[in-house]
């Protein structure tokens, strides 16, 4: 047996190694110079994330595969990685003052964020079921800790415990499914699985179908699809706002990339079998997410249900499984990174120490004391509802077009109807901020890094609407410059 050993394989993992080096540097500074670490960690992690973005884009345009085909870096992966790294950079920016205000240990916080990001990036480029499981655990274990990171706050403790129990439960289901797929096809390599599926003997194998179903359940937990969404609202409510912001982008994007690779790239031949399941899950996710969001009066829970609903729209593109669908998924994720992190950034600004002031009533009349902040929140709510002129509108149009191209009219109608319903609770936030005029409008402080994050998110939200091709041409340009 020859083992393929090729030092050039390591080039594919440069973004991950930059993040790993940054995380180690932060940990060591924290261990040997605590005071310096509290001041410098956010900026070091921001620099590391920026380096990783540059390195990721460097891989654009020339698909590489390495480590015996376990890791691939194709254009789909680069775009999703960009979405994740954008989310990480913005999450670090909104954390700067939050971590100080809540008196969280800074070094560990930023190191865990970066380690979790490594897991997400690895998951995006996994071309092997072992890698998918490992990277899922790397990103999840760091997130379990981050969710319970406000150690003295009971809600954070409870959220950490619930997320840990349900998260590792879903991971156990996933790995059992992976074991069954391995038994049915004799391989864990996604490309080889696709090759195996050509033979009819493998296609009808009940062991394979059971395995595929269990993997779908495991990844469904991670993307927060109904009926595997029950952890989402509690975790988003209890976790520190910045952590909720970070994981609503990163873990969702990574899990969707893995879902696309498993369902479409590896098991495309099995689409007649899984289409019905994904169809039902997508329809349920959009409906339940948007309907339950209406009943929420806690903004963090509302955003949690909103994140469930958005998973439903992306699942429509997964179900379509055509070229348009594959293009719309990375675009949707990048657009979602901007608009959702923007919304969470405003939430972080409005909350006070100890995660107080998270009710919708705390936004009453925000426009009259902070017009720019309220205006940005209004923009993000428009984007999440899918109203022009925002990236959310473009992203939804792409998904709808993919559904049309795949002849899924039923799912398309559900998607459009739920989008209209969702406008109600997104616009309600805007109405509360602009129309209500209490005697004392809320007064909040917006530190500079947070303001920068909101500005970047708002700019990105409009920019992607004006130039929807920009994600591709941007990566093209940067790749040419390098």
């Amino acid at each position, binding site marked *: *047996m020859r083992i393929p050993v090729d030092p050039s394989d390591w080039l594919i993992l440069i973004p991950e190694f930059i993040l790993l080096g940054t995380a180690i540097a932060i940990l060591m500074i924290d261990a040997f110079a605590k005071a310096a670490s509290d001041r410098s960690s956010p900026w070091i992690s921001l620099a590391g994330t920026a380096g990783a973005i540059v390195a990721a884009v460097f891989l654009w345009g020339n698909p590489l595969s390495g480590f015996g085909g376990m890791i691939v870096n194709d254009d789909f992966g680069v775009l999703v990685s960009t979405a994740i790294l954008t989310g990480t950079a913005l999450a670090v920016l909104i954390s700067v003052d939050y971590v100080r205000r809540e008196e969280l240990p800074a070094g560990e916080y930023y190191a865990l964020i970066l380690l979790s990001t490594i897991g997400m990036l690895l998951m995006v480029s996994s071309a092997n079921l*072992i890698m998918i*499981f*490992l990277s899922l*655990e790397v990103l999840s*274990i760091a997130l*379990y*800790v981050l969710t*319970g990171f406000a*150690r003295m706050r*009971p*809600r954070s*403790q*409870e*959220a*950490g*415990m619930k997320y*840990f*129990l349900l998260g*590792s*439960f879903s*991971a*156990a*289901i996933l*790995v*059992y499914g*992976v*074991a*069954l797929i*391995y*038994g049915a096809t*004799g*391989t*864990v390599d996604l490309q080889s699985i696709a090759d195996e599926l050509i033979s009819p003997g493998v296609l009808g194998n009940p062991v394979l179908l059971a395995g595929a179903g269990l993997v779908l359940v495991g990844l469904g937990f991670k993307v927060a699809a109904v009926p595997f969404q*029950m952890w989402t*609202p*509690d975790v988003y*409510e*209890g976790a520190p706002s910045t952590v909720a912001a970070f994981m609503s982008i990163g873990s969702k994007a990574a899990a969707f990339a893995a879902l696309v690779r498993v369902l479409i790239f590896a098991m495309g031949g099995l689409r007649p079998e899984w289409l019905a399941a994904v169809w039902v899950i997508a329809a349920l996710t959009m409906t339940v997410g948007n309907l339950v969001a209406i009943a929420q009066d806690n903004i963090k829970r509302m955003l949690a249900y909103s994140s469930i609903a958005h998973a439903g729209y992306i699942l429509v593109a997964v179900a379509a499984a055509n070229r348009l669908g594959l293009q719309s998924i990375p675009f949707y994720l990048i657009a979602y990174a901007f608009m959702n992190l923007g919304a969470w950034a405003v939430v972080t600004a409005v909350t006070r120490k100890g995660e107080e002031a998270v009710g919708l009533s705390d936004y009453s009349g925000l426009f009259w004391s902070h017009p720019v902040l309220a205006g940005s929140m209004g923009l993000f709510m428009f984007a999440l509802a899918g109203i022009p002129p925002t990236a959310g509108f473009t992203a939804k149009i792409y998904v709808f077009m993919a559904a049309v191209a795949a002849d899924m009219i039923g799912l398309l109608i559900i998607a459009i109807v739920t989008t209209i319903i969702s406008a109600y609770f997104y616009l309600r936030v805007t109405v509360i901020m602009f129309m209500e005029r209490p005697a004392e409008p809320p007064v909040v402080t917006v530190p500079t890094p947070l303001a920068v994050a909101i500005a970047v998110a708002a700019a990105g939200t409009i920019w992607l609407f004006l130039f929807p091709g920009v994600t591709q041409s941007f990566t093209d340009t940067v790749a040419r410059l390098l």
Partner: protein
Amino acid sequence: MPPVTWYLYVSAALFCIGLFGMMTRRNAIALLMSIELMLNAANINLVAFSGYLTEHTLVGQVFALFVITIAAAEAAVGLAIVINVYRTVQHINADEINIMKW
């Protein structure tokens, strides 16, 4: 050697015991143990398939090593989280820890 289905029965039984534990147990540590059972059920599958399907590679066995390692890391983080909860509420009954509605 016994046929591979025997191993599959054992692992399926183990997986179902874990699943049943997840549904019925209240104690967070018992839930953690149920998860470990499910992971080990997958391990049995992986090693059994590795022995029967592919004679010249050790993919399944190496995968099982990774699962074992991950399970240890998960247990460590999980116990730390549970201990932290215990310090506040003095018990670890998962269904009584519900300030937030599920």
